[in-house]
Protein backbone atom coordinates (compact mmCIF):
# COMPACT_ATOMS: atom_id res chain seq x y z
CA UNK A 1 0.00 0.00 0.00
CA UNK A 2 2.67 2.46 1.09
CA UNK A 3 4.89 1.26 -1.73
CA UNK A 4 2.08 1.89 -4.20
CA UNK A 5 1.59 5.43 -2.91
CA UNK A 6 5.32 6.00 -3.06
CA UNK A 7 5.33 4.81 -6.66
CA UNK A 8 2.37 6.95 -7.61
CA UNK A 9 3.32 10.18 -5.90
CA UNK A 10 7.08 10.21 -5.56
CA UNK A 11 9.35 7.95 -7.46
CA UNK A 12 8.47 7.15 -10.92
CA UNK A 13 5.26 9.05 -10.24
CA UNK A 14 4.24 12.64 -9.99
CA UNK A 15 7.13 14.31 -8.16
CA UNK A 16 9.88 12.68 -10.20
CA UNK A 17 8.12 13.47 -13.47
CA UNK A 18 7.48 17.07 -12.41
CA UNK A 19 11.13 17.64 -11.53
CA UNK A 20 12.32 15.86 -14.64
CA UNK A 21 9.84 17.85 -16.73
CA UNK A 22 11.05 21.16 -15.32
CA UNK A 23 14.66 20.13 -15.91
CA UNK A 24 13.78 19.16 -19.49
CA UNK A 25 12.13 22.53 -20.02
CA UNK A 26 15.28 24.24 -18.76
CA UNK A 27 17.46 22.20 -21.11
CA UNK A 28 15.13 22.98 -23.99
CA UNK A 29 15.26 26.70 -23.23
CA UNK A 30 19.01 26.87 -22.67
CA UNK A 31 19.74 25.04 -25.94
CA UNK A 32 17.35 27.39 -27.72
CA UNK A 33 19.13 30.38 -26.14
CA UNK A 34 22.65 29.14 -26.84
CA UNK A 35 21.79 28.45 -30.48
CA UNK A 36 20.59 32.04 -30.72
CA UNK A 37 23.91 33.15 -29.28
CA UNK A 38 22.63 34.42 -25.95
CA UNK A 39 23.04 33.43 -22.32
CA UNK A 40 19.62 31.95 -21.67
CA UNK A 41 17.74 31.60 -18.40
CA UNK A 42 19.29 30.47 -15.13
CA UNK A 43 18.80 26.84 -14.09
CA UNK A 44 15.92 27.49 -11.70
CA UNK A 45 13.85 29.43 -14.24
CA UNK A 46 11.08 26.87 -14.91
CA UNK A 47 10.70 26.29 -11.15
CA UNK A 48 10.48 30.03 -10.44
CA UNK A 49 7.88 30.43 -13.22
CA UNK A 50 5.82 27.61 -11.76
CA UNK A 51 5.93 28.89 -8.16
CA UNK A 52 5.09 32.39 -9.30
CA UNK A 53 2.13 31.18 -11.33
CA UNK A 54 0.83 29.09 -8.44
CA UNK A 55 1.02 32.11 -6.11
CA UNK A 56 -0.82 34.38 -8.53
CA UNK A 57 -4.49 35.26 -8.65
CA UNK A 58 -6.74 33.04 -10.78
CA UNK A 59 -8.99 34.99 -13.06
CA UNK A 60 -11.97 33.08 -14.43
CA UNK A 61 -13.88 34.93 -17.15
CA UNK A 62 -17.52 35.33 -16.14
CA UNK A 63 -18.63 34.00 -19.52
CA UNK A 64 -16.68 30.79 -19.03
CA UNK A 65 -17.99 27.59 -17.53
CA UNK A 66 -16.07 27.57 -14.22
CA UNK A 67 -16.15 23.82 -13.61
CA UNK A 68 -14.78 22.84 -17.02
CA UNK A 69 -12.37 25.77 -16.97
CA UNK A 70 -10.85 24.62 -13.67
CA UNK A 71 -10.93 20.90 -14.40
CA UNK A 72 -9.04 20.89 -17.70
CA UNK A 73 -5.51 21.72 -16.44
CA UNK A 74 -5.74 19.06 -13.72
CA UNK A 75 -7.05 16.49 -16.19
CA UNK A 76 -4.16 17.23 -18.55
CA UNK A 77 -1.62 16.74 -15.78
CA UNK A 78 -3.26 13.55 -14.53
CA UNK A 79 -3.39 11.96 -17.98
CA UNK A 80 0.26 12.74 -18.68
CA UNK A 81 1.40 11.31 -15.34
CA UNK A 82 -0.79 8.21 -15.68
CA UNK A 83 0.68 7.38 -19.07
CA UNK A 84 4.14 7.06 -17.53
CA UNK A 85 3.11 4.08 -15.37
CA UNK A 86 2.80 1.83 -18.42
CA UNK A 87 6.10 2.81 -20.05
CA UNK A 88 9.21 0.79 -19.18
CA UNK A 89 11.58 3.51 -18.03
CA UNK A 90 14.87 1.93 -17.08
CA UNK A 91 14.00 -1.70 -16.51
CA UNK A 92 12.42 -4.02 -19.01
CA UNK A 93 9.22 -3.95 -16.98
CA UNK A 94 6.95 -0.98 -16.51
CA UNK A 95 5.27 -0.30 -13.19
CA UNK A 96 2.04 -1.80 -14.50
CA UNK A 97 1.62 -3.65 -17.71
CA UNK A 98 -0.95 -5.70 -19.54
CA UNK A 99 -1.40 -6.76 -23.13
CA UNK A 100 -2.58 -3.67 -24.99
CA UNK A 101 -1.07 -0.99 -22.77
CA UNK A 102 0.63 0.51 -25.84
CA UNK A 103 -2.73 1.67 -27.14
CA UNK A 104 -3.74 2.93 -23.71
CA UNK A 105 -0.57 5.02 -23.45
CA UNK A 106 -1.15 6.52 -26.88
CA UNK A 107 -4.70 7.48 -25.93
CA UNK A 108 -3.63 8.85 -22.54
CA UNK A 109 -1.13 11.06 -24.36
CA UNK A 110 -3.95 12.31 -26.58
CA UNK A 111 -5.98 13.51 -23.59
CA UNK A 112 -3.84 16.64 -22.92
CA UNK A 113 -4.55 17.85 -26.47
CA UNK A 114 -8.26 17.29 -25.92
CA UNK A 115 -8.10 19.26 -22.67
CA UNK A 116 -6.39 22.12 -24.52
CA UNK A 117 -9.29 22.04 -26.94
CA UNK A 118 -11.98 21.93 -24.25
CA UNK A 119 -10.22 24.47 -22.03
CA UNK A 120 -9.91 26.89 -24.92
CA UNK A 121 -13.47 26.25 -26.02
CA UNK A 122 -14.97 26.77 -22.56
CA UNK A 123 -13.06 29.98 -21.90
CA UNK A 124 -15.26 31.50 -24.66
CA UNK A 125 -12.78 34.15 -25.73
CA UNK A 126 -12.38 34.53 -29.47
CA UNK A 127 -8.65 33.91 -29.47
CA UNK A 128 -8.89 30.80 -27.34
CA UNK A 129 -11.65 29.43 -29.55
CA UNK A 130 -9.50 29.86 -32.64
CA UNK A 131 -6.63 28.22 -30.77
CA UNK A 132 -8.87 25.37 -29.70
CA UNK A 133 -10.04 24.72 -33.25
CA UNK A 134 -6.46 24.75 -34.46
CA UNK A 135 -5.40 22.34 -31.71
CA UNK A 136 -8.04 19.82 -32.71
CA UNK A 137 -7.36 20.25 -36.45
CA UNK A 138 -3.70 19.68 -35.83
CA UNK A 139 -4.52 16.57 -33.80
CA UNK A 140 -5.92 14.90 -36.92
CA UNK A 141 -2.74 15.65 -38.85
CA UNK A 142 -0.12 14.15 -36.56
CA UNK A 143 -2.04 11.53 -34.61
CA UNK A 144 -2.45 9.01 -37.45
CA UNK A 145 1.25 8.94 -38.46
CA UNK A 146 2.20 8.72 -34.76
CA UNK A 147 -0.07 5.74 -34.15
CA UNK A 148 1.06 3.92 -37.28
CA UNK A 149 4.76 4.40 -36.67
CA UNK A 150 4.53 3.35 -33.03
CA UNK A 151 2.44 0.30 -33.84
CA UNK A 152 4.96 -0.86 -36.47
CA UNK A 153 7.70 -1.86 -33.97
CA UNK A 154 5.01 -3.54 -31.90
CA UNK A 155 4.09 -5.57 -34.95
CA UNK A 156 7.67 -6.75 -35.31
CA UNK A 157 7.76 -7.71 -31.64
CA UNK A 158 4.38 -9.43 -32.01
CA UNK A 159 2.92 -7.92 -28.85
CA UNK A 160 0.79 -4.98 -27.75
CA UNK A 161 2.50 -4.57 -24.41
CA UNK A 162 5.32 -2.05 -24.01
CA UNK A 163 7.10 -4.18 -21.42
CA UNK A 164 7.09 -7.26 -23.68
CA UNK A 165 8.27 -5.08 -26.57
CA UNK A 166 11.21 -3.93 -24.45
CA UNK A 167 11.98 -7.55 -23.58
CA UNK A 168 11.80 -8.54 -27.27
CA UNK A 169 14.16 -5.79 -28.39
CA UNK A 170 16.51 -6.55 -25.52
CA UNK A 171 16.60 -10.18 -26.64
CA UNK A 172 17.25 -9.18 -30.26
CA UNK A 173 19.80 -6.35 -30.13
CA UNK A 174 20.08 -4.17 -33.25
CA UNK A 175 16.55 -4.92 -34.40
CA UNK A 176 15.73 -1.35 -33.34
CA UNK A 177 17.84 -0.03 -36.23
CA UNK A 178 15.06 -1.16 -38.59
CA UNK A 179 12.72 1.35 -36.99
CA UNK A 180 14.69 4.54 -37.59
CA UNK A 181 12.24 5.91 -40.17
CA UNK A 182 9.52 5.47 -37.59
CA UNK A 183 11.65 7.32 -35.06
CA UNK A 184 11.86 10.33 -37.38
CA UNK A 185 8.12 10.27 -37.99
CA UNK A 186 7.44 9.98 -34.27
CA UNK A 187 9.71 12.96 -33.56
CA UNK A 188 7.76 15.09 -36.03
CA UNK A 189 4.47 13.96 -34.53
CA UNK A 190 5.82 14.69 -31.04
CA UNK A 191 6.55 18.27 -32.09
CA UNK A 192 2.91 18.58 -33.07
CA UNK A 193 1.70 16.95 -29.87
CA UNK A 194 3.76 19.25 -27.66
CA UNK A 195 2.89 22.29 -29.81
CA UNK A 196 6.54 23.15 -30.30
CA UNK A 197 7.74 25.53 -32.94
CA UNK A 198 7.13 24.42 -36.43
CA UNK A 199 3.74 23.21 -35.17
CA UNK A 200 2.91 25.72 -32.43
CA UNK A 201 -0.03 26.90 -34.51
CA UNK A 202 -2.60 26.56 -31.67
CA UNK A 203 -0.75 29.04 -29.46
CA UNK A 204 0.86 31.19 -32.13
CA UNK A 205 1.52 34.24 -29.99
CA UNK A 206 2.13 36.58 -32.91
CA UNK A 207 -1.25 35.79 -34.46
CA UNK A 208 -3.78 34.79 -31.83
CA UNK A 209 -2.33 36.18 -28.57
CA UNK A 210 -1.79 32.92 -26.68
CA UNK A 211 -4.26 30.64 -28.41
CA UNK A 212 -5.93 28.14 -26.14
CA UNK A 213 -4.31 29.54 -23.01
CA UNK A 214 -5.34 33.16 -23.59
CA UNK A 215 -7.79 33.30 -20.68
CA UNK A 216 -5.83 31.08 -18.30
CA UNK A 217 -3.88 32.72 -15.50
CA UNK A 218 -2.31 31.86 -12.18
CA UNK A 219 -2.51 28.30 -10.85
CA UNK A 220 -4.47 26.94 -13.79
CA UNK A 221 -1.92 28.20 -16.30
CA UNK A 222 0.82 26.78 -14.07
CA UNK A 223 -0.83 23.35 -14.16
CA UNK A 224 -1.12 23.52 -17.93
CA UNK A 225 2.56 24.43 -18.23
CA UNK A 226 3.52 21.60 -15.89
CA UNK A 227 1.30 19.22 -17.86
CA UNK A 228 3.09 20.16 -21.08
CA UNK A 229 6.48 19.62 -19.44
CA UNK A 230 5.45 16.25 -18.05
CA UNK A 231 3.93 15.30 -21.39
CA UNK A 232 7.24 16.16 -23.08
CA UNK A 233 9.13 13.85 -20.73
CA UNK A 234 6.57 11.05 -20.94
CA UNK A 235 6.39 11.32 -24.72
CA UNK A 236 10.17 11.23 -24.94
CA UNK A 237 10.19 8.19 -22.63
CA UNK A 238 7.67 6.49 -24.90
CA UNK A 239 9.84 7.17 -27.96
CA UNK A 240 12.90 5.98 -26.04
CA UNK A 241 11.13 2.77 -25.00
CA UNK A 242 9.81 2.02 -28.48
CA UNK A 243 12.61 3.22 -30.76
CA UNK A 244 15.76 3.16 -28.64
CA UNK A 245 15.30 -0.06 -26.68
CA UNK A 246 18.78 -0.79 -25.40
CA UNK A 247 20.61 -0.48 -22.12
CA UNK A 248 18.25 -2.69 -20.11
CA UNK A 249 19.42 -5.23 -17.60
CA UNK A 250 22.74 -3.65 -16.65
CA UNK A 251 21.83 -2.68 -13.12
CA UNK A 252 19.28 -0.09 -12.14
CA UNK A 253 21.72 2.80 -11.58
CA UNK A 254 23.41 2.54 -14.95
CA UNK A 255 20.03 1.84 -16.54
CA UNK A 256 18.66 5.00 -14.98
CA UNK A 257 21.55 7.06 -16.35
CA UNK A 258 21.01 5.61 -19.82
CA UNK A 259 17.27 6.30 -19.59
CA UNK A 260 17.89 9.96 -18.66
CA UNK A 261 20.43 10.28 -21.47
CA UNK A 262 17.96 8.87 -24.01
CA UNK A 263 15.19 11.23 -22.92
CA UNK A 264 17.52 14.24 -22.95
CA UNK A 265 18.74 13.25 -26.42
CA UNK A 266 15.17 13.35 -27.69
CA UNK A 267 14.51 16.66 -25.88
CA UNK A 268 17.65 18.07 -27.55
CA UNK A 269 16.41 17.00 -30.98
CA UNK A 270 13.08 18.72 -30.29
CA UNK A 271 14.85 21.91 -29.13
CA UNK A 272 17.04 21.87 -32.23
CA UNK A 273 14.06 21.69 -34.55
CA UNK A 274 12.41 24.48 -32.54
CA UNK A 275 15.38 26.70 -33.32
CA UNK A 276 15.76 25.78 -36.97
CA UNK A 277 12.22 25.99 -38.27
CA UNK A 278 9.64 28.76 -38.41
CA UNK A 279 5.96 28.29 -37.77
CA UNK A 280 3.88 26.71 -40.54
CA UNK A 281 0.35 27.68 -41.43
CA UNK A 282 -2.31 25.20 -40.38
CA UNK A 283 -3.05 24.15 -43.97
CA UNK A 284 0.66 23.72 -44.71
CA UNK A 285 0.96 21.55 -41.63
CA UNK A 286 -1.99 19.35 -42.69
CA UNK A 287 -0.53 19.01 -46.16
CA UNK A 288 2.94 18.18 -44.84
CA UNK A 289 1.65 15.58 -42.41
CA UNK A 290 -0.68 13.80 -44.80
CA UNK A 291 1.48 14.02 -47.95
CA UNK A 292 4.90 13.18 -46.52
CA UNK A 293 4.77 12.04 -42.89
CA UNK A 294 1.88 9.58 -43.12
CA UNK A 295 3.34 7.77 -46.19
CA UNK A 296 6.68 7.51 -44.35
CA UNK A 297 4.88 5.92 -41.44
CA UNK A 298 3.34 3.43 -43.89
CA UNK A 299 6.80 2.68 -45.28
CA UNK A 300 7.87 1.85 -41.75
CA UNK A 301 4.86 -0.42 -41.36
CA UNK A 302 5.65 -2.25 -44.63
CA UNK A 303 9.32 -2.65 -43.62
CA UNK A 304 8.30 -4.19 -40.33
CA UNK A 305 5.78 -6.50 -41.99
CA UNK A 306 8.40 -7.69 -44.48
CA UNK A 307 11.00 -8.19 -41.76
CA UNK A 308 8.51 -10.14 -39.75
CA UNK A 309 8.16 -12.55 -42.64
CA UNK A 310 11.94 -12.87 -43.08
CA UNK A 311 13.39 -12.75 -39.57
CA UNK A 312 10.77 -14.31 -37.38
CA UNK A 313 9.33 -17.59 -38.38
Amino acid sequence: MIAAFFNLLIFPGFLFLAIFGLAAEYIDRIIYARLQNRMGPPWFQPLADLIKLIAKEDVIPCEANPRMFKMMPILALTAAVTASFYIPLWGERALFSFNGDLVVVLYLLTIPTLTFFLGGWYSTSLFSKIGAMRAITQLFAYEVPLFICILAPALLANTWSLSEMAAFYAAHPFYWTFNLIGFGVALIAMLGKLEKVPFDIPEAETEIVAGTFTEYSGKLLGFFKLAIDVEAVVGASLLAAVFLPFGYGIGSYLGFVIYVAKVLFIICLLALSRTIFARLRIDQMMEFCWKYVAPLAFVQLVIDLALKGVLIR
Partner: protein
Amino acid sequence: MGLVRKIVTWARIKSPWIIHFNTGACNACDIEIVAALTPRYDLERFGIQLKGTPRHADVLVCSGPVTKQITPRLKRIYEQMPEPKFVVAVGTCSCSGGVFQGCYNVESGIDEVLPVSAYIPGCPASPKAIIDGVTKLLMSLEDKEGSRIQGPGSGKK
Protein backbone atom coordinates in the same frame (compact mmCIF):
# COMPACT_ATOMS: atom_id res chain seq x y z
CA MET B 1 4.52 30.86 6.66
CA GLY B 2 7.70 32.90 6.58
CA LEU B 3 9.51 30.40 4.41
CA VAL B 4 6.64 30.05 1.94
CA ARG B 5 6.41 33.82 1.62
CA LYS B 6 10.14 34.04 1.03
CA ILE B 7 10.00 31.40 -1.70
CA VAL B 8 7.06 33.12 -3.37
CA THR B 9 8.83 36.49 -3.28
CA TRP B 10 11.92 34.89 -4.74
CA ALA B 11 9.88 33.32 -7.53
CA ARG B 12 8.16 36.63 -8.31
CA ILE B 13 11.47 38.43 -8.54
CA LYS B 14 12.99 35.74 -10.75
CA SER B 15 10.13 35.44 -13.20
CA PRO B 16 8.53 38.73 -14.23
CA TRP B 17 6.52 38.29 -17.40
CA ILE B 18 5.79 41.51 -19.19
CA ILE B 19 3.20 42.83 -21.58
CA HIS B 20 4.04 45.80 -23.70
CA PHE B 21 1.37 48.40 -24.42
CA ASN B 22 1.73 51.53 -26.50
CA THR B 23 -0.26 54.30 -24.83
CA GLY B 24 0.28 56.84 -27.58
CA ALA B 25 4.06 56.90 -27.87
CA CYS B 26 5.82 58.28 -30.91
CA ASN B 27 7.00 54.67 -31.52
CA ALA B 28 10.65 55.30 -30.63
CA CYS B 29 10.20 54.02 -27.09
CA ASP B 30 8.40 50.92 -28.41
CA ILE B 31 11.29 50.16 -30.71
CA GLU B 32 13.68 50.46 -27.77
CA ILE B 33 11.54 48.13 -25.65
CA VAL B 34 11.46 45.59 -28.46
CA ALA B 35 15.23 46.02 -28.88
CA ALA B 36 15.69 45.24 -25.19
CA LEU B 37 13.93 41.90 -25.78
CA THR B 38 16.18 40.82 -28.66
CA PRO B 39 18.99 38.28 -28.21
CA ARG B 40 21.49 41.15 -28.11
CA TYR B 41 20.28 42.27 -24.67
CA ASP B 42 18.79 38.87 -23.73
CA LEU B 43 16.23 39.73 -21.06
CA GLU B 44 15.56 36.02 -20.53
CA ARG B 45 18.66 36.07 -18.29
CA PHE B 46 16.43 37.71 -15.69
CA GLY B 47 13.53 35.43 -16.47
CA ILE B 48 11.72 38.21 -18.32
CA GLN B 49 9.45 36.98 -21.10
CA LEU B 50 7.19 38.96 -23.38
CA LYS B 51 3.62 37.65 -23.21
CA GLY B 52 0.82 38.38 -25.62
CA THR B 53 -2.04 38.44 -23.15
CA PRO B 54 -2.52 40.50 -19.97
CA ARG B 55 -3.74 37.35 -18.20
CA HIS B 56 -0.21 35.91 -18.21
CA ALA B 57 1.66 39.11 -17.43
CA ASP B 58 2.96 40.53 -14.16
CA VAL B 59 4.38 43.80 -15.41
CA LEU B 60 2.61 46.21 -17.75
CA VAL B 61 5.25 48.12 -19.70
CA CYS B 62 3.72 51.33 -21.06
CA SER B 63 5.25 53.86 -23.38
CA GLY B 64 3.77 57.20 -24.26
CA PRO B 65 1.62 59.89 -22.67
CA VAL B 66 -1.79 58.17 -22.42
CA THR B 67 -3.94 59.80 -25.05
CA LYS B 68 -7.57 60.48 -24.15
CA GLN B 69 -8.66 57.83 -26.61
CA ILE B 70 -6.51 55.08 -25.13
CA THR B 71 -7.27 55.77 -21.44
CA PRO B 72 -10.26 53.39 -21.09
CA ARG B 73 -8.36 50.68 -22.97
CA LEU B 74 -5.32 51.07 -20.75
CA LYS B 75 -7.51 50.76 -17.65
CA ARG B 76 -9.20 47.72 -19.09
CA ILE B 77 -5.93 45.97 -19.86
CA TYR B 78 -4.71 46.76 -16.36
CA GLU B 79 -7.86 45.31 -14.85
CA GLN B 80 -7.46 42.12 -16.88
CA MET B 81 -4.11 41.37 -15.27
CA PRO B 82 -4.18 39.07 -12.23
CA GLU B 83 -2.72 40.30 -8.93
CA PRO B 84 0.04 41.10 -8.04
CA LYS B 85 0.76 43.45 -10.91
CA PHE B 86 3.08 46.34 -11.57
CA VAL B 87 3.25 49.16 -14.08
CA VAL B 88 6.47 50.45 -15.58
CA ALA B 89 6.47 53.78 -17.42
CA VAL B 90 9.10 53.83 -20.17
CA GLY B 91 10.18 57.13 -21.70
CA THR B 92 9.84 60.72 -20.63
CA CYS B 93 6.39 60.90 -22.17
CA SER B 94 4.96 58.23 -19.96
CA CYS B 95 6.72 59.64 -16.89
CA SER B 96 5.50 63.20 -17.22
CA GLY B 97 4.00 63.81 -20.62
CA GLY B 98 7.32 64.91 -22.06
CA VAL B 99 7.05 66.93 -25.22
CA PHE B 100 3.32 66.32 -25.29
CA GLN B 101 2.71 67.77 -21.84
CA GLY B 102 -0.30 70.05 -21.81
CA CYS B 103 -1.59 68.94 -25.19
CA TYR B 104 -5.37 68.99 -25.48
CA ASN B 105 -5.57 65.27 -26.17
CA VAL B 106 -3.24 63.65 -23.61
CA GLU B 107 -3.27 62.89 -19.88
CA SER B 108 0.42 63.79 -19.27
CA GLY B 109 1.81 60.56 -17.90
CA ILE B 110 0.72 57.08 -16.90
CA ASP B 111 0.41 58.02 -13.23
CA GLU B 112 -2.58 60.20 -14.06
CA VAL B 113 -4.44 56.98 -14.80
CA LEU B 114 -2.71 54.03 -13.09
CA PRO B 115 -0.39 53.56 -10.09
CA VAL B 116 3.17 53.33 -11.45
CA SER B 117 5.93 51.29 -9.80
CA ALA B 118 8.95 52.40 -11.82
CA TYR B 119 9.72 55.39 -14.03
CA ILE B 120 12.35 55.04 -16.74
CA PRO B 121 13.13 58.44 -18.28
CA GLY B 122 14.85 59.04 -21.59
CA CYS B 123 13.63 60.20 -24.98
CA PRO B 124 13.70 57.43 -26.03
CA ALA B 125 14.78 55.34 -23.03
CA SER B 126 17.65 53.13 -24.16
CA PRO B 127 17.45 49.35 -23.73
CA LYS B 128 20.14 49.54 -21.08
CA ALA B 129 18.09 52.06 -19.11
CA ILE B 130 15.03 49.83 -19.43
CA ILE B 131 16.92 46.80 -18.13
CA ASP B 132 18.33 48.92 -15.30
CA GLY B 133 14.88 50.19 -14.38
CA VAL B 134 13.31 46.75 -14.40
CA THR B 135 16.06 45.21 -12.27
CA LYS B 136 15.71 48.11 -9.80
CA LEU B 137 11.99 47.46 -9.59
CA LEU B 138 12.71 43.79 -8.87
CA MET B 139 15.29 44.73 -6.24
CA SER B 140 12.78 47.00 -4.52
CA LEU B 141 10.49 43.98 -4.22
CA GLU B 142 13.23 42.16 -2.38
CA ASP B 143 13.50 44.98 0.18
CA LYS B 144 9.82 44.71 0.94
CA GLU B 145 10.22 40.99 1.54
CA GLY B 146 8.93 41.15 5.11
CA SER B 147 5.60 42.67 4.22
CA ARG B 148 3.27 40.80 1.91
CA ILE B 149 3.98 41.92 -1.62
CA GLN B 150 1.07 43.34 -3.48
CA GLY B 151 0.81 45.35 -6.60
CA PRO B 152 0.37 49.01 -5.79
CA GLY B 153 -3.00 48.69 -7.48
CA SER B 154 -4.50 46.58 -4.71
CA GLY B 155 -5.21 49.61 -2.55
CA LYS B 156 -7.39 51.60 -4.94
CA LYS B 157 -5.94 54.76 -6.37
